[in-house]
């Protein structure tokens, strides 16, 4: 990780527990405010590339809005994969079952990868991110 800090966003624009997407040097990032401590991560979910700022941030744990995969925004670690729409042993309704069977075949090979993290600091009311 380099220490080439780039001005990203005004710190006041991201409340504690909030997130905001920014584009820095052509790179899509999300600036997260974990109770006053700022962190920056890649914008795309490590599961299926959903925009992570649409999710929720609880402490340092980000839950993706699309399939509820969870990540630690400090380490970038994937904490859980997607939550399945039906429990493993359950029989979904027939129409949905057929759809899920096909989708499931495609999705079973998709791994949840960790996301990249970037150093962030607040200076002169701005959040700076190291790219």
């Amino acid at each position: 990780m380099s220490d080439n800090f780039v001005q990203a966003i005004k710190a006041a624009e991201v409340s504690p527990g909030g997130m905001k997407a920014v584009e820095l040097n052509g790179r899509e990032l999300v600036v997260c405010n974990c109770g006053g401590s700022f962190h920056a991560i890649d914008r795309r979910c490590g599961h299926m590339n959903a925009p992570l700022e649409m999710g929720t941030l609880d402490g340092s744990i980000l839950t993706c809005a699309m399939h509820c995969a969870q990540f630690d925004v400090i380490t970038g670690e994937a904490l859980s994969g997607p939550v399945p729409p039906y429990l493993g042993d359950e029989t979904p309704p027939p129409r949905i079952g057929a759809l899920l069977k096909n989708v499931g075949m495609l999705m079973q090979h998709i791994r949840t990868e960790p996301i990249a993290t970037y150093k962030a600091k607040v200076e002169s009311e701005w959040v700076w991110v190291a790219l």
Partner: protein
Amino acid sequence: MNIESRKKALRHFFAKLVEPMGFKFTPDAELAEFLLEQEVKLEVKHGVPFCPCQPIRRDRSRDMQIVCPCIPFHREHFDAMKRCWCGLFVHRDVTDPDSLPQMSAKEMGIE
């Protein structure tokens, strides 16, 4: 996925849910670690962290009542025992979890 990291995440979310209900994690750290690990394994298999000490019946309405922390679904029973069924959570005032018996609701005269 790293089991230890997932355990930490479950601790984070569970604490927020059980504390307002008057419960806390058991002071028996070894037991808590073991039970959380089993829950992580169940979550990997089924998609949700079921209670590791109750049977999965393949009946959604019943199975959803054993998703950890299942305290709201068994409130009267667990309050009487001062612990949840598997012992991961105990009443806030409990310091000696080994002294709490694991008794069915029927044995306790609740059902």
